[in-house]
């Protein structure tokens, strides 16, 4: 990369996580922002760039007391924040701003001052050509490719269930995880049927929470109290919001395109990666993520997980906070994936991967619609 690097110098989630009936969505943004500012040793007066999704950036800027010279309100669902980081990086390099705050807050469970999901279909063809058939909520849209995936690779529903089991083991190590009790494949299969083949424990949580990141140039990052977490590579792409129009139900084009760009920019190989976060709204998504990012060949991710490679002591610890399946999922999970990557690179994660130097986070917007990939590291290349 020609330009100077950018680093995360502040990172935090909301003070509480889970069920937060006493805060609006706007205040969840602010709570996360205040925690990230404190983490960086800054106040709102030090911020000159702002990006958020869910609430509009001008709403948040005035609420926080920020006077920005750079604003990004990109709102493409759960990977919005990964795209914000990518866009902020270029803005800092271009001199449009020096210190950027990126926030997420979502009252996904309590719905206090929340925009809600129905607006998703406004002006979209999915409202006309999917909703009438019952494709109107994530459990009946995001999930549809899975049976085709299983058939093409000769896999079983147990292969989906074990994803939830593996992630629960990580959650058990995370005091802030919503669900920590161990589960078995039978527990997963015998939980309430939501949308065959998906049972309840193969579906993400619905919780309240938020998170925020503060970015600045690598030169300035050295003056902050926290060790800088450098952004080594980023990528973004999209395929489309209609699950019925996804090109191939065994692989996500958006994942592949965004991932390839991020790895090329970082100039690293898959073997260089110590830790991975893959947005797991449902149990099949980590299978696609591991394959489409190039960590596994097509159809081999289930075996990779089954053999323990993504678990404690494995060669590619994945979703170490417990993921959307067990940690938390407010609706737009991408922020939490990045928070865990930053914790791992700082060496402060509850389930710390010893010596983690490079972490990859894959975010999704919509149902395989948009993807952002980001690669963090503790050293400049």
């Amino acid at each position, binding site marked *: 990369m020609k330009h100077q690097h950018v680093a995360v110098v502040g990172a935090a989630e909301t003070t509480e996580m889970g069920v937060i009936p006493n805060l609006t969505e706007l205040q969840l943004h602010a709570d996360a922002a205040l925690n990230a500012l404190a983490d960086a040793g800054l106040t709102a007066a030090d911020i000159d760039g702002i990006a958020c999704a869910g609430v509009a950036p001008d709403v948040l800027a005035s609420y926080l007391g920020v006077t920005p010279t750079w604003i990004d309100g990109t709102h493409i669902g759960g990977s919005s924040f990964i795209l914000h980081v990518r866009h902020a990086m270029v803005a800092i390099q271009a001199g449009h701003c020096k210190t950027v705050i990126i926030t997420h807050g979502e009252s996904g469970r309590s719905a206090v001052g929340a925009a809600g999901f129905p607006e998703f279909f406004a002006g979209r063809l999915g409202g*006309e*050509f999917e909703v*009438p*058939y019952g494709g109107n909520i994530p*459990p009946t849209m995001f999930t549809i490719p899975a049976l*085709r995936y299983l*058939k093409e690779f000769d896999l079983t529903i147990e292969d989906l269930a074990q994803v939830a089991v593996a992630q629960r083991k990580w959650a058990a190590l995370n005091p802030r995880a919503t669900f920590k009790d161990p589960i078995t494949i039978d527990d997963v299969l015998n939980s309430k*049927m939501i*949308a065959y*083949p998906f049972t309840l424990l193969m579906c993400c949580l619905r919780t309240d929470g938020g998170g925020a990141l503060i970015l600045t140039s690598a030169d300035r990052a050295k003056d902050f109290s926290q060790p800088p977490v450098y952004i080594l590579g980023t990528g973004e792409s999209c395929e489309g919001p209609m699950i019925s129009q996804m090109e191939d139900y065994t692989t996500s084009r958006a994942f592949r395109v965004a991932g390839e760009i991020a790895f090329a920019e970082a100039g690293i190989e898959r073997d260089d990666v110590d830790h991975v976060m893959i947005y797991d709204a449902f149990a099949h998504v980590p299978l696609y993520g591991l394959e489409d990012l190039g960590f596994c060949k097509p159809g081999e991710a289930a075996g990779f997980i089954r053999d323990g490679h993504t678990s404690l002591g494995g060669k590619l610890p994945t979703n170490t906070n417990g993921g959307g399946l067990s940690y938390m999922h407010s609706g737009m999970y991408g922020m939490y994936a990045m928070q865990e990557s930053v914790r791992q690179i700082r060496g402060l994660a509850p389930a710390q991967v010893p010596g983690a130097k490079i972490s990859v986070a894959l975010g999704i917007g919509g149902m395989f619609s948009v993807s952002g990939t980001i690669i963090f590291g503790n050293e400049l290349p």
Partner: protein
Amino acid sequence: MSKNFSERLLPRPSPESQHFWDGTKEGELRLQRCGDCGKSYFPPRPFCPFCSSRNVLVYPASGQATLYSYVINHLPTPGFDGPHAVAVVTLEEGPRMMTNIVDCEQTPDTLVLDMPLEVTFERQNDDITLPLFKPAS
């Protein structure tokens, strides 16, 4: 969309899709095809998503399809009584569309991927008839 939870959420035709819903009322499943590159596409739009040509035409599809993938939804859904397949089918002409599979049990044993299907039309009201699919005869 309907506010009555007992009723199916129905499409609202747009200027770009009216031909499709006019077709289903007349018992035709209408696709569009590019006059330049020859590819068929769905959902409707007045240009080709493959080559950006505005030279497109509407034509009736055969109504033959195969089952690409599905879930069996167990959650309460407006207009559905009990578990039902939310399915995606591959039309003989190439495009895929979401639909429901009718005239058969809504079970994994009955709903087998790649099974042949044919279109059937279910009238909802004066304006809307939905294209659904059933096992091919």
